[in-house]
């Protein structure tokens, strides 16, 4: 076997060394791929199936005081239910549209309030002051035989 010296190799000619380099670096890249692909798939959390909730019963009309609000679990989502001073029920998504904090009903303001950054919504869920960029999503209320049920708004 004779090896050509460096200066004897013509331009563009492939040498044994080039071949090995391609083989090794190709193999290395393939190996990295074989490690990185499972790694990234592993890190992506699998979809956890959540039982789909379409309605939640929150008890009798009399269970809630007038002029008060409470947070209920609607599947995985927090929902704020407000009983106005005239006895009317309203429900909104309780996740602030600003940065996802959970809002509360403030009797003293007569408004929905987000404590994180002083966001305020009126009692129709409209953002009226502070940073929230959008209104709270509305949920529907149905009252049957004095039982209050919160419904997901029909899309």
């Amino acid at each position, binding site marked *: 076997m004779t090896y050509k010296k460096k200066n004897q190799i013509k331009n563009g000619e492939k040498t044994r060394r080039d071949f090995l380099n391609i083989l090794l670096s190709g193999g290395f890249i393939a190996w990295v791929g074989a490690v990185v692909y*499972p*790694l990234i*798939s*592993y*890190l*992506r*959390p*699998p979809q956890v199936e959540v039982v789909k909730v379409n309605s939640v019963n929150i008890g009798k009309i009399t269970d809630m005081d007038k002029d008060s609000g409470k947070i209920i679990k609607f599947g995985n989502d927090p929902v704020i239910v407000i009983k106005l001073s005239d006895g009317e029920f309203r429900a909104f998504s309780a996740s602030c549209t600003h940065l996802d904090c959970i809002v509360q009903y403030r009797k003293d303001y007569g408004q929905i309030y987000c404590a994180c950054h002083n966001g305020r919504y009126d009692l129709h869920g409209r953002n009226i002051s502070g940073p929230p960029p959008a209104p709270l999503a509305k949920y529907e209320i149905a009252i049957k035989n004095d039982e209050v049920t919160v419904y997901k708004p029909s899309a």
Partner: protein
Amino acid sequence: MKETFNKKIYNALNERFQLDNLVSFLKHKSVPKYRNTIWYYFGGISLLLFIVQVATGILLIMYYKGSEDLAYESIKFINAKVSFGWLIRSIHSWSANLMILAVFVHMFSVYFLKAFRKPRELTWYTGVILLFLSMGFGFSGYLLPWDQLAFFATKVGTDIAGQLPFVGDFLLKLLRGGEDVTGATLSRFFGLHVALLPGVFVVFLSLHLIFIQRQGMSEPEDWKNKKESEKTTIPFFPNFTVHDLLIWLIVINILAILATFFPWELGPKADAFVSAPVGIKPEWYFLFMFQSLKYIPAKVWLIEGELLGILGFGLAGLLWVLVPFWDSKTPKGKRNKIINYVGIFAISFIIIFTILGYLLD
């Protein structure tokens, strides 16, 4: 263009961190080349497997839940739902076992090559501590899936610790977080496995590696009277490093094959009110001790047999660890055959009792 760019970076770093010293150090570092050079790779293999353990362990923590109610379910979730979750768990379990094996081979080779002799006593001691920590990793990690085998292995293991005189009762409660193996034990073992042990391990591992870099590779006994020119060595960098990498590649392949084709199993969930399954055994690296305890009669004179066995192993272990102290011949350049006999006895004992443990119930 590229060359000068790399050069520039090197110069900039060199100016700040004096890389030249490091480079000349690496250039001069060499490894003795003779018939036993093969054994010099096992420390590196152990290190590789430890790195694999850290990487896969971090991945497992992302889904594992260390509580009595959720641990088993979270492992099931990793096995069944997470993409490649079964693979990561299988690699972690296999790599743990291979690491213990590599550490044992490393220790015995260092022992027989008398690499523990002056000036390398501290490297030996830190190595022994690393072995014990590795076994601690194995023991604590074994409980985490919270399956039946794990539960009983931990019951038995902590019970043995509880039989030690004076400190036994305290140790038992300390390990279990109460009288029995419960969720409290799981929490403690989880903390040990992912926080305390890794922290302590890294400290001793760093010392171990610094000692080796500082003193260079141990040379065989009979090189003592050789002239420098008669010694055959290979440079640590790049020759030995390239060999090292090649061996790492082989080990990674073995690991991948084992983990893929023999995925680690998960038994039924631990239940404190279910009988121990027939033929239950500890992990293989504890098996020789477990098996030999079975042969000791319940009472020897006035001492309980079990306790005698445990103390015996403790004493033997201590003598083994302290070998640099009682080996007075080797440092003087004489052959110390007793060392070899003791080592051969230890290996035969471990192998015979491990086999017995597997063959007999």
